[in-house]
């Protein structure tokens, strides 16, 4: 899911950086009203947990693999802005300390996993919770978050003014694979949300 250096056209790199920085400014303004010391602690511990969970790659026989992304979980537990802040911390450390995700792709990776995944998880959970119950809502939220993040990644690497347009290749590969592998993300998200809600019922934002 982390786009490395070299995969993005320079125009796409610049556009995604601009969109990410615009959202960062907007989100930080909104976070200012929400962030108290207990919330700061929660953002931090969730960011640390997501960072650790992303290190567990699950190889699937046949050569494909996945890892937990956590954007949907962050949105469900913290809401769209604090959830974004948690993912921002994770992705910043992954990129700057471990070069997991390219510096030229940081804007795109932030958009995919920090904005699209977080918003998808948050809104799906809020919409579905009264209709399907909490567990199913969190499961769909987690699944949708990684599927839409995959779609966004496919759009970004498939649109290249200098190299040509290959959306017919990138969008199906990224969306279909993540929709299939995302079931694991959905189940993990639902289990974690249920556990957190049992221990800290005031936490779940949705």
């Amino acid at each position: 899911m982390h786009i490395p250096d070299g995969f993005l056209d320079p125009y796409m790199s610049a556009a995604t950086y601009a969109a990410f920085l615009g959202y960062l400014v907007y989100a930080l303004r909104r976070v200012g009203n929400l962030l108290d010391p207990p919330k700061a602690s929660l953002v931090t511990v969730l960011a640390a947990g997501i960072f650790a969970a992303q290190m567990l790659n699950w190889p699937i026989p046949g050569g494909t693999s996945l890892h937990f992304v956590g954007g949907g979980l962050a949105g469900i537990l913290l809401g769209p802005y604090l959830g974004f802040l948690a993912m921002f911390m994770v992705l910043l450390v992954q990129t700057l300390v471990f070069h997991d995700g390219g510096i030229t792709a940081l804007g795109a990776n932030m958009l995919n996993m920090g904005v699209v995944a977080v918003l998808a998880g948050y809104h799906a959970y809020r919409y579905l919770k009264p209709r399907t119950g909490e567990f199913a809502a969190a499961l769909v939220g987690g699944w949708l978050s990684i599927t839409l993040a995959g779609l966004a990644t496919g759009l970004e690497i498939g649109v290249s003014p200098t190299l040509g347009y290959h959306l017919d290749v990138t969008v199906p590969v990224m969306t279909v694979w993540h929709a299939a592998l995302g079931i694991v993300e959905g189940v993990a998200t639902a289990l974690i949300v249920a556990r957190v809600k049992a221990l800290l019922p005031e936490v779940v934002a949705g």
Partner: protein
Amino acid sequence: MTGFLGRHRRALIITVLLVLVSPVFGVVLAEMVGYHEPLDVAAEKLGLPDKTSELNWTPFLDYTVPGLPETLGYIVAGLLGIAVILGLGALLHRLAARRGREG
């Protein structure tokens, strides 16, 4: 550094445990089965060049630590990443506390 996380001690312990078992999934199984994300599949089809090595700036590339075997390095890198996140969180907590006093 972790005083501001006192209420979440259990979550932190689980986080560290995840890092301790992470080489099983991130290194051992990945080498046995082959690690290939959907993004790698799409990039191969288009011939997109991964320039990570050319542009690299960190000694901890891909969760390795110079001089350590891959599995142990993966654990140390994970603990390092968590320490940096907790450091950022401590700054965030201090900022929130200051805003609370001023507000």
